[in-house]
């Protein structure tokens, strides 16, 4: 028995190691690359003890990239800022709109409720291009093209359904009696919603917010089509280091690393809610 146990633990360790290597090695490699010059990156075979440099990060952060064809101004930090702004605002708007709606779908059975819920969910599953193409025309007409407001609105396609879906499940699993109890105590509906329902659904809301932040952050095509250069997120910005005199691999790597950092920081901060919050709670007892 003990031997079987040892064997099992050993196998588990090997499996976990393989998993970690597969998923983290590319990240590790990119981090390493971000500290290398273009020449060391291009060495064949790859060297295991490269000369490390901070020049890629310096270039990105200072906004000046020296190449043989001259100094290229990089707007990467501005792209990063756009990503932060777009993702954060989109998630906030989605929370403000989505949490009450999720609550309504979870708590009340009302005429058309399920239809509205499904309609909202189905936005997540509509091919984005289908909406995007005609939208470019309308955006022009209503003056939303190339505005943060317009982009944040379109980002709701990504954030809102996800938040609705996860948070609704969370509300459904919490017994309504707790809110009822609070109301018969003499508190208004609004107070019961804010002081009881939302705090109790906190982990679910946090997890949903984090996931939709990640998906908003990772979006590529919405901003590309709808916004001018000064509103582009990092996903588009990272492409800019392909220059005529060669592809700046080191800088691309550094840009990738910088583009992952904010979401990673957020995930680390939110990790205690993440797993609990995603447990949609469909099964209880």
């Amino acid at each position, binding site marked *: 028995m003990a031997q079987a146990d040892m064997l099992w633990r050993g196998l588990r360790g090997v499996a976990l190691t393989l998993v970690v290597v597969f998923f983290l090695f590319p990240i590790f490699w990119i981090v390493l690359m971000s500290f290398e010059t273009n020449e060391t990156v291009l060495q064949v075979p790859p060297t295991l003890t490269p000369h490390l440099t901070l020049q890629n990060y310096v270039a990105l952060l200072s906004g000046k990239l020296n190449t043989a064809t001259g100094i290229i101004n990089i707007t990467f930090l501005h792209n990063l800022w756009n990503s932060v702004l777009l993702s954060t605002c989109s998630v906030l708007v989605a929370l403000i709109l989505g949490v009450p709606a999720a609550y309504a779908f979870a708590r009340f059975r009302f005429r058309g409720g399920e239809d509205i819920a499904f309609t909202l969910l189905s936005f997540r599953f509509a091919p984005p291009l289908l909406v995007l193409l005609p939208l470019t025309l309308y955006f022009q007409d209503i003056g939303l093209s190339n505005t943060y407001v317009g982009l944040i609105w379109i980002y709701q396609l990504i954030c809102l359904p996800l938040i609705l879906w996860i948070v609704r499940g969370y509300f459904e699993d919490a017994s309504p*009696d*707790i809110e*009822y*109890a609070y*109301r*018969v*105590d003499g508190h208004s*509906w609004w107070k019961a919603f804010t002081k009881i329902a939302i*705090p109790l659904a906190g982990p679910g809301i946090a997890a949903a917010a984090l996931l939709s932040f990640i998906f908003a952050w990772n979006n590529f095509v919405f901003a590309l089509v709808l916004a001018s250069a000064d509103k582009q997120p990092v996903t588009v910005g990272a492409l800019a280091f392909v220059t005529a005199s060669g592809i700046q691999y080191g800088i691309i790597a550094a840009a990738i690393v910088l583009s992952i950092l904010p979401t990673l920081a957020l995930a680390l901060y939110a990790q205690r809610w993440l797993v609990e919050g995603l447990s949609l709670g469909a099964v209880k007892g």
Partner: protein
Amino acid sequence: MNTAITKNGLHAQAIRTAFGKTTVLHDVSLAVAPGETLVLFGPSGSGKTVLLRAIAGLDPNATGHVTIAGRDVTTAGPEGRSIGVAFQNFALYPHMSARENIASPLRARKLPEREIDEKVSAIAKLLKIDHVLAQQPRALSNGQKQRTALARALVGSPKILLMDDPLRNVDAKLRYEMRMELPRLLRRANAAAVYVTQDYREAMALGDRIAVLIDGHIVQLDDPERVYAAPASVAVARLFGDPPLNLVPCRPTLANDGLHVSVFGLDLTLSMAGALAGREAMLGLRPDSIAIFADPQPGAVAATIAAVTPLHGKVVLLLRTQAGDEILASQVGRAPETGSTIWFRPETDTALLYDTETGLLAGEARTATEEAA
């Protein structure tokens, strides 16, 4: 109508609730006077909780009128009804301490901190939970949770107290304790109380009156003793009492000395009106009205003891006659062996007669009526 009820108590009129096409409550009305405890009794799914929620204003789909202490609160939300509710699952706020849980109704009224403190301490002391006030609900035992929930319902001295089977989720010992303690607390609260339960014993112990709710109808609203002695329908009879009432199919005939029924090969005379003569009926016999003899007796039927179950100091016997009919009897004292033969005789002075077609009580033995009166 009782003016005290109208003036100070709870008056619910024609409450109706439907979920989609199924109507759960059919225009149910009831009135409770201050200081009175009305027990809502019924099987699960009969609409008890739904009714309670309608009264509390928690069900926006309910229609009907609710008047509390003379004030029509039909259009008020739950927060505007000054009621206390004890939920079956306690419904404590998991992110607040027991003290804050109990203080919640007082905070809603924006009472001064000192007053809140005093009131919470007093009620906690009364319910013997003053030592756990600082803890969060998850750190409390089931009994403490239950008391916290009750304390919260009582602390604001509500005019109306609604209790949704509050003892359902606690163990037998606690349930017993609370059953002793609750009448005292309810008296002290002097509220019009509605108490929901599925347990007839609890209903008998706590109710000043009992309303039996089946399929969204109040089928009987009466004193506990009356409900026990004369369940208004077969359905009530089956629910009320443990062991339940024996219901024996029969076809009564009318003779000069009263109604005759023929059951277990016996011809019994019932001293009641003959409305059911010639129709399909059910003879209701309480298990404790079955006399049991160790030896053959006149008018007694021989039966084998098919099973024996002890119950609250009594034993319940399942008897099977040679014809294969079964009947439950209960008796105090030592039970005979399973498999042995005994003789039994139904006592007709508490017998009830139900119309098979409608299931309603059609007649009861006169003695029983007199006793109850």
